[in-house]
């Protein structure tokens, strides 16, 4: 019973991380129609920026996390404004552009920091223990920050004019543009927001999991899984699916072991694609 609850807690904390990643990914797709293959790259970059701030500049960890978020957001903004914007309506072209950026981020990190994982650990350690349950303290902190960030995204998207504008653009770009919303202004902002979220997650999570030039790939795969499950472009779908994925992963590690959980998830995604191709909360998936 205790292990059941512990695994559940770990699943929720994993789910919160995945939700942050998937939210950023699905926002870009919903608003710009761009599949961001560099999302995993921004996650890794966030981790390395935070690491550099702590290890080289001696900044406190919370400041480093903030710096990582701002740095990745800035890179995302510039990348959208100068490169993606030129081919924004061509699915394949934007996919290739972001793929190219992902490869370059990986290589640049490897050139600067080398292929080995740097020593980067979470500043708070310890285990919270009550009524026989165990919960690592750092997971709790990450969970709390992630939940606040998710709340922030929801507030931004549903309670502010910027969010309303972004959702309007996602709904119907032409109509939104005729109403005076300017895609040229909002697209880079949306991209920056999404990349900032990936950077934030990277800065938070890599000290617990691991940091290395190649850790972005499984992260990207999980974001894909989550977004397909939840339905493309759906904010609520991405959040629910992320917690589902987190829980399945945590429980399968305890009860199935090895990589069977990942296999089970993939089968689940295939079934969802057959039964309900638009995902749990998506709108339309068939056709071009």
């Amino acid at each position: 019973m205790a292990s059941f609850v512990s695994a559940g807690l770990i699943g929720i904390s994993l789910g919160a991380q995945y939700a942050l990643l998937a939210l950023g990914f699905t926002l870009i797709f919903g608003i710009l129609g761009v599949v961001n293959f560099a999302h995993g790259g921004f996650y890794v970059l966030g981790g390395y920026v935070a690491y550099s701030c702590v290890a080289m500049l001696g900044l406190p960890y919370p400041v480093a996390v903030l710096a990582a978020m701002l740095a990745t957001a800035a890179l995302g903004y510039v990348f959208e404004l100068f490169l993606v914007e030129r081919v924004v309506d061509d699915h394949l072209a934007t996919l290739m552009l972001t793929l190219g950026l992902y490869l370059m981020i990986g290589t640049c990190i490897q050139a600067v920091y080398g292929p080995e994982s740097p020593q980067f650990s979470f500043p708070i350690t310890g285990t919270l223990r009550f009524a026989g349950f165990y919960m690592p303290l750092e997971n709790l902190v990450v969970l709390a920050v992630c939940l606040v960030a998710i709340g922030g995204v929801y507030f931004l998207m549903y309670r502010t004019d910027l969010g309303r504008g972004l959702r309007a653009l996602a709904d119907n770009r032409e109509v939104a543009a005729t109403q005076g919303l300017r895609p040229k202004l909002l697209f880079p902002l949306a991209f920056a927001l999404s990349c900032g979220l990936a950077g934030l997650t990277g800065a938070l999570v890599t000290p617990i999991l691991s940091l290395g030039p190649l850790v972005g790939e499984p992260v990207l795969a999980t974001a894909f899984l989550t977004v397909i499950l939840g339905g493309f472009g759906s904010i609520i779908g991405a959040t629910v699916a992320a917690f589902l994925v987190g829980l399945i992963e945590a429980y399968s590690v305890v009860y199935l072991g090895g990589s069977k959980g990942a296999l089970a998830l993939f089968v689940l995604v295939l079934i969802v694609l057959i039964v309900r191709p638009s995902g749990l909360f998506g709108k339309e998936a068939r056709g071009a």
Partner: protein
Amino acid sequence: MSRLSQFSSEIAAIAIIGLSFLIPFITDSPFAYSTHNLIAVAVTAAFSVYIMLRMDLMTFAVPAFMAVGGYAAAIAGLKFGIVDSFFLTALSFVAPAVVALPLGILLLRLRGIYFVLVTFLLTQILQLLIFETPDLTGGTNGLVGMPATTIFGMELADNKSVLLLAIGVAFAAAIITALVSGYLRREFAAIEENEVLAQSLGLVVWRYKVIGFVVAAGLAGMAGFSLVNMLLTAHPTSFSPQSSVNYIAYTIIGGRGSMLGPVVGATLLVWMSSIFSTHGEFSEGLYGLLIMVVVLAARGGIVGTVAALWRRLTRNLGSETSAAPIVGTVKEVAHER
């Protein structure tokens, strides 16, 4: 406009690969052999990406199908003692094609984006499957000690004959690619140009996509067999998810508009990475940079750009006969103007 010149880039691609049969007879440097062998594998795999790009679909599943083909050949050789290279090549085509058929039927009715993401996941999952089935695939150890293949009963054991087999596989792959992309030229062009319009005109789009996907999977499988035969081992690291990007890079940088593109791209990039192998870790970044350059500045890749320059040059020289585009689809030609 003769039919022959319409297929000039297909013929050129096949001819180049055919001519490379001579290389093992000209030189015997081990470096040239290993580089050329890698190029033959890369070209075969790049054809798989090329066929998918004909339909405006990106695939990350090349390593997955390479693994299916490669492991099928390795298992046939190790456990059943089958060493005939014709049979193994055919097996390495059929096995992944059979796997791809139900997947394609299932996935290709969905939007292209879903398909791309699922191919990405597929490669990750296949890697896990290999680790989870050590009895069949040897797990993390891989399958070691592939017996030498034979052709008409002759053993192909030394480096030279292994290389010749790899070129032969690439040659066969080129012919299959030319036949499929030539035979379905109009259907593929219609899908690439405007899928919705093609569908509304009565083209059963997903059916042609499935055909393309199955053939592409088979071609990747052949590349897998070629790679396994070169290394004499089937090992999961040969089919890593990261390598899928390389095959995409070969095709896009070489030029996705014609069959010459993957040949040129794979040859140049593999050759470059073997020369600069001391800085191998930077090759991915270079590929990334080149892909971005192609997308933003040189849509046709190397082959398309050279062809466009050549056309402009000959036009400036005053030749009245402005021939129809040799390379590139309608879309790209329109873009160049």
